[in-house]
C-alpha cells in the first residue's frame, strides 16, 4: 500500500515549509484588522487621531468615554490605559512613535514629558477656549498648567482631599465634627472609646496615605518644596505637623495595620465603622450603600494651630503630543470634548470634581452637599503637591507615588522615629530624585 500524505514520514522540506508558514502567520495577522474604537467618517482626507484615557471610574466610565470620544465628527481612536505601569506604557509608545495624539494621565505627567520635548503646547487650545467662553476654570487651575512659559496641558478635573466623618459614629461617641487640630484630637479620643480608630490611613504600596499626611502639612501653612521646586521638608511648621500626626499614631488613633493597607482596606474600614474619620477623595460617599450615604459628611477645612487652612489637590489634565498626525485636529477634538465631558458628572461616573464653574453649577453637582462643600470650602484652600512652587513641575512625577513619600508615611504610622528624623529622611529621599538647581 502506498503511503498517504498523512502517513509518510516528516521530511526536512515539509518541516521547513511548516516553519515558514508559522513565521509568516503572525506577520500577516499584524497587517490586518482595524482598531477596535474608531469613529467613522466620510471625510477620508482627515487623519485619525488617538486619545488615550486613564480609568477614572468604574467600567461604565470607560464605556461611556469611548462612546463619547468616537462620536466626534472626525475620526478619533479611543484607548483605555490601566494605571499599572502607566508611565512605561506612555514612554514605550512615544519612543516607538505609536503614542497618542492626546491623553489624560497623572497630574505631573505632562510636565515630565514636556521636559523631554514631546508635549505640544496647549497655548492655542486654551486661547480658543477663552475665545469661545469655555475657559471658565476655577481660580488657579490654569496657572498650575504652565511650564517654561507655556501651557502644557488643560485641566479637566480636580481631586481635592477633604476630611470625612461618620455622623452616626460621632453621635455615638458624643463628639462634634472637628474644626481644628485640637478638636480633631478630641474627636479621635472619643471615637477610640467606642472602639473606632479616629484617623484612617492607607500606607501600602501605591496607596494614597501620603495624601492625608501632605494635607495636614499644607494645613499648617507649609509644604515640602520651595518656590523653585526644591525639596525643603525640615521646617518648624512641618515638624509641628508631623509631631501632630505622630501623636495621633502613638495615641492609638491611627490603626497600626494601616502601614500595609491598600486604599480598599481603609475604605472598607470607613464603611464598616472601624474608622471614624478619613481624609479622602470626593467620591467617598460612593463606597456606601444608598441607605447609609447620608451618614457620610465632610467637615469644613480644619484650622491649623497658626490659623491656616489648607489641603491637598490633584489637578487632572489633558495633554497633547507633538507626534500627533495633526495638532489642529487634536485641538478641534479637545475643544469639543472639554464641553461634552460634562456627561461624566451628570451620570456620576467619575470620582472627582470638575474644574469648570459651569460644570460645578450643574444640578447633579449642586444637589450633592458634599461636592458643594468641597468645591466651595476646600478647593479655595487646596494646594498642589509641589507647594510652595506656583505650578506643577516634572520631578513631581517621581515624588507622586515614589518611595520617599511612601516610606515617610509608613514611618509616621510606625512612630519609631521623631518628626525631625522622618522629615530628614524624606528630604534625603527627595534630593535623590530632584537634582539641585
Amino acid at each position, binding site marked *: 500500500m502506498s503511503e498517504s500524505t498523512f502517513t509518510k514520514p516528516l521530511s*526536512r522540506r515539509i*518541516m*521547513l515549509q511548516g*516553519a515558514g508558514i508559522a*513565521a509568516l502567520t503572525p506577520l500577516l495577522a499584524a497587517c490586518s484588522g482595524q482598531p477596535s474604537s474608531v469613529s467613522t467618517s466620510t471625510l477620508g482626507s482627515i487623519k485619525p487621531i488617538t486619545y488615550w484615557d486613564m480609568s477614572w471610574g468604574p467600567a461604565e466610565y470607560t464605556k461611556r468615554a469611548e462612546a463619547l470620544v468616537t462620536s466626534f465628527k472626525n475620526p478619533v481612536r479611543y484607548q483605555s490605559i490601566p494605571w499599572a*505601569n502607566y*508611565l*512605561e506604557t506612555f*514612554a514605550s509608545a*512615544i*519612543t516607538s512613535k505609536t503614542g497618542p495624539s492626546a491623553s489624560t494621565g497623572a497630574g505631573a505627567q505632562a510636565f*515630565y*514629558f514636556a521636559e*523631554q520635548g*514631546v508635549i505640544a503646547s496647549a497655548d492655542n487650545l486654551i486661547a480658543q477656549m477663552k475665545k469661545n467662553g469655555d475657559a471658565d476654570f476655577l481660580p488657579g487651575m490654569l496657572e498650575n498648567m504652565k511650564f517654561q512659559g507655556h501651557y502644557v496641558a488643560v485641566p479637566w478635573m480636580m481631586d481635592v482631599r477633604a476630611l470625612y466623618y461618620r455622623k452616626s459614629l460621632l453621635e455615638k461617641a458624643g463628639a462634634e465634627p472637628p474644626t481644628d487640630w485640637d478638636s480633631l484630637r478630641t474627636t479621635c479620643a472619643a471615637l477610640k472609646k467606642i472602639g473606632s480608630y479616629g484617623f484612617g490611613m492607607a*500606607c*501600602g*504600596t*501605591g496607596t494614597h496615605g501620603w495624601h492625608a499626611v501632605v494635607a495636614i502639612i499644607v494645613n499648617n501653612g507649609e509644604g515640602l518644596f520651595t518656590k523653585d521646586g526644591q525639596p525643603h521638608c525640615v521646617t518648624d511648621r512641618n515638624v509641628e505637623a508631623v509631631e501632630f500626626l505622630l501623636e495621633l499614631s502613638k495615641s492609638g488613633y491611627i*490603626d*497600626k*495595620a*494601616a*502601614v*500595609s*493597607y*491598600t486604599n480598599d*482596606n481603609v475604605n472598607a*474600614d470607613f464603611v*464598616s465603622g*472601624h474608622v471614624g474619620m478619613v481624609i479622602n477623595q470626593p467620591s467617598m460617599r460612593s463606597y456606601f450603600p444608598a441607605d447609609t450615604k447620608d451618614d457620610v459628611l465632610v467637615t469644613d477645612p480644619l484650622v491649623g494651630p497658626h490659623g491656616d487652612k489648607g489641603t491637598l489637590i490633584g489637578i487632572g489634565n489633558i495633554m497633547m503630543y507633538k507626534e500627533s498626525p495633526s495638532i489642529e485636529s487634536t485641538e478641534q477634538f479637545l475643544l469639543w470634548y472639554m464641553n461634552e465631558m460634562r456627561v461624566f458628572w451628570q451620570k456620576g461616573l467619575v470620582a472627582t470634581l470638575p474644574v469648570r464653574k459651569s460644570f460645578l453649577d450643574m444640578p447633579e453637582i449642586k444637589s450633592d452637599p458634599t461636592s458643594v462643600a468641597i468645591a466651595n470650602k476646600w478647593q479655595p484652600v487646596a494646594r498642589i503637591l509641589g507647594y510652595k512652587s506656583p505650578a506643577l513641575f516634572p520631578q513631581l*512625577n*517621581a515624588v507622586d*507615588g*515614589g*518611595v*520617599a513619600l*511612601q*516610606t515617610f508615611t*509608613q*514611618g509616621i*504610622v*510606625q512612630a519609631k522615629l521623631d518628626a525631625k528624623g522622618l522629615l530628614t529622611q524624606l528630604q534625603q529621599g527627595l534630593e*535623590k*530624585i530632584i537634582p539641585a538647581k
Partner: protein
Amino acid sequence: MRQSGKVIDGQRLTWAAMVAPTVVLLILVNIIPLFSAVNSAFHNSTLLNTGEFVGVQNFSEALADPAFWSAVRFTVIFVASGVFGGWIVGFALALTLRSTLFGKSAFRLLLLLPWVVPIVVSARSWNFLTASQSSLIPQLFTHLGWGDGLLLADPTTAAITVCVYKIWCTFPFMMVMAASALEAVDESVYEASVLDGAGRWQQLVWVVLPLVARPTYISWLLMGIFCVNDFPTIYLLTGGGPVGATTTVVVYAYQQMFQNLQLGQGVAIALIMTVVVALVAVVFYRQIRRAHV
C-alpha cells in the same frame, strides 16, 4: 564522497535554518536590550532619553546608598529562607512520600498547589489573611493572647512573614527535585547500609544525602536564582515595606527605575545584582561538578 559532502552541507544548512529564528529572537529580545540597559547604566537616563554620560556615577551612588545595602541584607535572608527553608520542607516531604501512605497521590498533588497557583492569587490570599485587624491571622493571635497579630505592620514580623511565604511557594519545587533524586538511589544501597548497622538518621546523613548531593546543589542553584529575581512575591505581598524592611535588590531596582524614575541607577543596581549572581552561580557550578556519586 561528493554526494555525502553535499548531504552533510545540506544538513548543516537545515540545522542553521532551524536554529536561526531562535538566535534572531534571542538577539532581539535579550542581547540588544541588554546592551541598551548597560548603556543606560552609564548615562543619566530617563524613560524616553539616554541622557548625558555620567561614567560610573550610578554604580558608585548605588553602592554608597544605605538603602541598597539594606536591600542586599534582606535579599540574602530571603534567598536563604527560600532555598534552605524550602529544601528542608521539600526534602522532608519527599522522604515522607516514599513511604506507603493512604492517599499518597492525592497528597502529592495537593502539595504542588502552592507552586502551581498563580503568584498573584496566593499573594493576595496571604495579604487577605494577614493585612488588617479583621483578617484571620490577627484575629487568631488576638484570641490566643499573642498580641495584635498584625504581621505586616511591623518590619521584623513582615520580614518573617515574607520569608515564610517564600518557603510556602518554594517547597513544592524542592519536593519534586528531591523526590526525583531519591528515586535514583538504588534500593540495594539502603539494604547494604542496614546490613552495616546504620540507623535511620545515619542512613540519611551518610548514605542518602551524599548520593543526592548533585541534584540537591542543582536545585539550590536554580532556586537561589529564582529567589534573587523574585519580584512579584514581595511586591504583591508587602510592596517592599513597611519602611523598606522587605525590599530586596530586585524590588529596589524596580523602585529606582519606575517609581523614582532614576532609570540609570535602577539599571546599575540590576547589573550589580546580575554580576554577583553570575559569580555565585559559577562557584556553585564548580561545587556541583565536584559532587560525585
